[in-house]
C-alpha cells in the first residue's frame, strides 16, 4: 500500500509539472479552442453539467460573480470565462 501512495504522489506531481509546462507554452494554444466566441463557449460549456442558463437569467454584475464561481467549478480558463461573461452581459 505504501508503494501505492508513492505512485499516486508521483503521478500527481508529474501531472502538475506537465500542466505548468504546457500552460506556460502559449504556442501550444490551439486556434480551434482559443478562437471560439463567447456565444460558442457558452453553448458548448454551460450545458455540460446543468441545463443551459439564458443570458437574461441574471444582470451584468451577477454574471461576474457567477462567472468566477463557474470558472473554478468547471475548470475553465480565465480567457474562456471572460468571453462567456462578456457574451452574457451583451445578450441579457
Amino acid at each position, binding site marked *: *500500500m*505504501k508503494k*501505492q*501512495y508513492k505512485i*499516486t*504522489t508521483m*503521478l*500527481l506531481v508529474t*501531472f*502538475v509539472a506537465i*500542466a505548468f509546462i*504546457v*500552460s506556460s507554452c502559449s504556442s*501550444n*494554444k*490551439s486556434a*480551434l*479552442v*482559443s478562437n471560439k466566441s463567447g456565444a460558442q463557449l457558452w453553448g*458548448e*460549456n454551460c*450545458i*455540460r*453539467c*446543468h*441545463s*443551459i*442558463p*439564458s443570458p437574461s*437569467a441574471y*444582470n451584468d*454584475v*451577477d454574471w*461576474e*460573480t*457567477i462567472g*468566477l*464561481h463557474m*470558472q*473554478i*467549478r*468547471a*475548470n*475553465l*480558463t*480565465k*480567457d474562456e470565462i471572460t468571453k462567456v461573461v462578456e457574451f452574457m452581459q451583451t445578450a441579457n
Partner: protein
Amino acid sequence: MKHLIIFVSILSLSGLNNLIGQENMFSKTQFMIRGYGHAGFEYTSVNGKNQSSYVGSTFAPIFLFKHSDRLLFESELEFELENNQVNVGFEYADMSYILNNYMTIRMGKFLLPFGTFVERLHPAWINRLSNMPLGFGHDGIAPSSGIGVELRGGFAVGGSKLNYSVYTTNGPVLKDGSNEPEEAGMLLFENFEDNNNNKAIGGRIGYLPFSNSSVEIGFSVYSGKVGNTNDSLYGNTGANLMAGDFTFVKQVSPLYGIIDIKAQYNLSLVDKADYFELEPGETIPTQYTFENKSDAYFAQLSYRPTMAGSNIIKNFEIIGRYSVINTPEGSLWEQQASQISYGLNYWLSWRTVFKLSYQTTNSEGGHDSPGTTKTNAIFLHWALGF
C-alpha cells in the same frame, strides 16, 4: 435554538446583500445568495410493505463573495428534515484564488472532485433523478468533501482540453468497529480534525477530446492512511480510492434534442486488517478479517427534445439510470445491490424541475437490512434553484 440563530443570520445576511451587495457603488465586493430547495412525495414498497410520505423541504443556501476578479469565497449550508429533526449540513466553505489563466488555488472545506457526481451533479436542480445513485451519500463508498488545499485548472492541448485538480486533505477515517461493530472496516469521510498525521492526497484529470467539449473522460484517485496515529492495530492501515467518469452532452439534430450521458465507476481498496465481533452469548470477541474492497457505479442517459416545435414537449425529459454497489464479502456490511430508475421530468425553467420517477432496487445483505430486499419506489419531486 441553534437553528434559529442560523436562520436569523441568513436573513440578516440577505438584508446585508442589498446594503453592501450589488447595488452599492462603494463596495467592490459582490455578494450573492444562491442555492436550491426541493420537496416531494415518495411511495415505497419494501418486500411488499408499503409506505408513503411527503418528504423534503430541503433548503440549501449558497453564499458567494466575489472580492475581486481573482478571489472568491463560497459556502453552502443544507437544512434537511430527517427522522422528525432538522439536520444542518455544512457542505462546503472555501476560498479560491485565481493564480493565472490555468491555475486556481483553493483552501477550506470543499467538494472533492472525485469523479463528477458529487462536485457537479448532486444538487437537486441538477440531478435528473430524485435520489443519488448507489454508492454515494450515507453509507456510500465515494467521498464527498474534504478539508485541505487544492490546485485546479484547465488548458487546451491541440484541439482538445485537459482539466486537472490535485489536493491534499485530512483524509478519510477507518471505522474500527469500537463504536459500531457492524460498520468495522468502513470509511468515514467527514474528518474535520485529522485522526493521524498523514495527509491524504488526491486528484482528478479530465480530458475533453473534442474541441466542442461534448465528451469528457475523467480519472480520479484519493489515498492516505486511515487509522488513528499510534494505533497498534490500524496505525498503518491505508486506503486507496479510484474513480473513472464519463460525460457526453450534446444537442443531436437528427434526434431533435439533447442527449446527456453521465457515468461514474468508484473503487475503494482498504488494507486488510483484523476486526472483532462479539457473538451473542459470548464474552470474548472473535477476530475476523476480509478483503476490504468495494465498488459502485452508475450510468445514466437522458433525452430532452429541445428542438421540438411545441413549447410544452420541449420541456419534457426522459431519463434512465442503472447503478450497482458491492461491499466486501465477509464484512458485517456486505451488500450487493442493483438499482434501475426511470424518470419523466418537466422543466419549468432552466433551474426548476418536476421529477417523476419509478425505481426498483434489489439488495442482498447490508447492515441495515440483512437478507434479500426488493424495494419499489415512486418519487415525485419539485426542485428549484434560485
